[in-house]
């Protein structure tokens, strides 16, 4: 039963997003008995300007949408056509997800799942203002191949940016350091569906990614491109991987650490390209919920390898762990603990059902559905990328408890609610409460 409860702790985190979106829907769809009919300027350009996600409209061109075959012309025909929505919920601002720092070049980069972009800020940007913090650059647009983006990584030596698409595009897009606007990536690498985190190892000229639905880590050559296969993978029942997300390569200790949510399954086959498996030959192993964890592997591990250490159990307070980062100078691991709006810090060598060395959590912190975390040893700071608020927060590196951030980067004016949507693919109508339910 305890594991079921833990299951729930992890699963219910999904519900936070789920019902967070629900709450916004309720907010956005309040007063629905008196529909608000939106009106549109007549010219396409003006309409784009009025559209809060206008730049996303342009991808199908000015010629308008495809015209489908005429609806059936029998008595049952009901014409609808280009019906404008009476209400909509769209977040016009970015939402931060992955985060990575380059203290040498004094910049911080964050991925933006909502607007499908990568934003670069000056490392010292932000403050106490309620206004939007201007980015230095933003990679965004139809040429970029950036879509439902998750992890972001940089190569300071080669001055490259790596953007990992998660749940649609199945590729990593690589850009030059100062890329800006709507431009093609300098190269791309196709990766398994639901890849999420990424970490580079400059010494080995390799990179590792996490893959959610396969509960897998895959190591590639750093310069991999196109359909290049991974050099090695870590996957199997002994790995303790279960819906992995944040991953970090500890170059000095030759280890790879990865955070798992705890959803475990086997999924073959899985695409519309795969034929029917003959009856009786399906892989029905049965899914399960396991406690969230951080597993550490030898960097050369492959196959169904056991982790060399595991942090897991109720004392750890792990709850939907997302991004992680390594503080090599102080031998610590920082975790964006999305499920309870906190950041957890563990000793690097911690194992088992251990309590975190520090926890940043509470109303003063401003931490809201954190997705990314980054440690700046040089400036003694800890960064948190929020998904539940339009902010990135900067704390003292050793901050603990319910403490306010030193400064804030905002991608929307203070107080702007976030949509909470993450690739919404379904909706249900709750007729009793007159509410809409949207899972992520």
């Amino acid at each position: 039963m305890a594991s079921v409860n833990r299951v729930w702790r992890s699963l219910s985190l999904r519900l936070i997003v789920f019902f967070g979106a629900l709450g916004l829907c309720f907010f956005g769809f309040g007063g629905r008995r008196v529909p608000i009919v939106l009106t549109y300027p007549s010219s396409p350009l003006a309409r784009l300007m009025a559209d809060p996600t206008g730049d996303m409209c342009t991808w199908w061109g000015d010629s308008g949408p495809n015209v489908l075959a005429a609806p059936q012309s029998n008595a049952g025909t009901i014409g609808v056509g280009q019906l404008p929505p009476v209400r909509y919920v769209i977040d016009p601002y970015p939402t931060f997800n992955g985060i990575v720092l380059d203290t040498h070049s004094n910049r911080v980069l964050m991925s933006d799942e909502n607007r499908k972009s990568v934003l670069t800020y000056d490392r010292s940007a932000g403050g106490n203002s309620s206004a939007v913090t201007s980015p230095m650059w933003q990679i965004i647009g139809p040429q970029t191949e950036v879509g439902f983006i998750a992890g972001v990584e940089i190569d300071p030596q080669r001055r490259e940016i790596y953007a990992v698409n998660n749940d649609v595009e199945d590729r990593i897009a690589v850009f030059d350091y100062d890329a800006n606007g709507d431009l093609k990536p300098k190269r791309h690498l196709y990766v398994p569906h639901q890849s999420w985190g990424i970490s580079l190892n400059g010494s080995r000229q390799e990179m590792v990614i996490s893959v959610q639905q396969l509960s897998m880590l895959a190591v590639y050559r750093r310069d991999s491109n196109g359909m290049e296969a991974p050099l090695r993978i870590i996957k199997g029942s002994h790995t303790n991987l279960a819906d992995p997300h944040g991953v970090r390569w500890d170059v000095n200790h030759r280890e790879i650490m990865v955070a798992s949510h705890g959803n475990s399954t086997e999924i073959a086959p899985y695409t519309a390209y795969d034929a029917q498996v003959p009856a009786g030959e399906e892989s029905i192993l049965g899914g399960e919920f396991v406690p969230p964890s951080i597993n550490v592997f030898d960097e050369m591990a492959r196959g169904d390898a056991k982790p060399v250490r595991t942090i897991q159990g109720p004392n750890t307070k792990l709850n939907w762990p997302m991004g992680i980062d390594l503080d090599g100078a102080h031998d610590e691991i920082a975790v964006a603990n999305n499920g309870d709006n906190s950041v957890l810090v563990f000793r690097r060598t911690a194992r088992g059902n251990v309590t975190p060395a520090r926890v940043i959590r509470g109303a003063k912190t401003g931490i809201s559905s954190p997705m990314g975390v980054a440690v700046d040893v040089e400036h003694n700071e800890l960064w948190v990328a929020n998904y539940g608020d339009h902010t990135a927060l900067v704390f003292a590196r050793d901050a603990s408890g319910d403490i306010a951030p030193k400064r804030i980067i905002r991608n929307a004016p203070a107080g702007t609610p976030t949509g909470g949507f993450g690739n919404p693919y379904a909706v249900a109508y709750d007729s009793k409460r007159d509410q809409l339910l949207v899972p992520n």
Partner: protein
Amino acid sequence: MHGIAYDATHDEVIVPVALADAVLVFRGGADGSEAPIRVIQGTNTKMIRPHTVTVDEQDNEIIVGDSSGRSVLVFDRSANGNVPPKRIIQGPRTGLLFVVGVAVDSTHDRLIAASAASVPGRKTGLFIFGRTDQGDVAPRAVIAGPKTGIVRPWQLASDPQRGKLFVAAINNESHPPYQLEKPRTDLPHDVQLPSPWNSGALGFIGVWDINDNGDVPPRAIIQGDNTFLVHPGGVAIDPKDGEVFATDSIRNGLFSFLAPNLFSERSQTQSTLGNGTTRSAR
């Protein structure tokens, strides 16, 4: 999660969890870190990757579309734990492959599955079965073909009272470069797969009659730049207020359309059951 259903009769919310082979049932109005009231999970369930879900409030059943199992599984509404399904529709005669949407019309005694296929000789579209069909059975009707406009379907919503079927035709192209952990061998190294920004045909919300069959256009369609829809994956309806709801993955948003004419008249044709009649409402 790529599916969700609301059971108004019992005030429950049902969601599939694809990455843990589970279907969860919450009380209506559940909030925050609230545990489900029932969990269907385990090897007996025959679920591999439950992708989508709907509920038959009249017949007390939960219907699950499994994209990896290439199956539709029917559970008792009150099922809990590692329990077997009451019925399974699965096998080559069903035509089902990548099942991404399910709906039930208890009035016309029909169960509908949206399935996508990139395997030669297999169809992408709407597969309409008898509500209690099971095993490796052929569908009673298939709505598929170029006139339908369906390149890639997703969530379904049913209006049994009027015999209408609402379809989210997401229509973005999906060319997965990997087969599980291995790159597909049939793709050249330098293949240029469609970009998410420029993939496929424009999506839409389409409406068909439950008795439609073959390569037939929708009877109504919500599509075009005024709608804001690009690749809508989710659809739900509120017949009482004449509204259609859609989620869109490109917009990362939720849209509400007021279309009372879609709910103003009864279906023009009667469902053809074995005895040639429709089921009477209970």
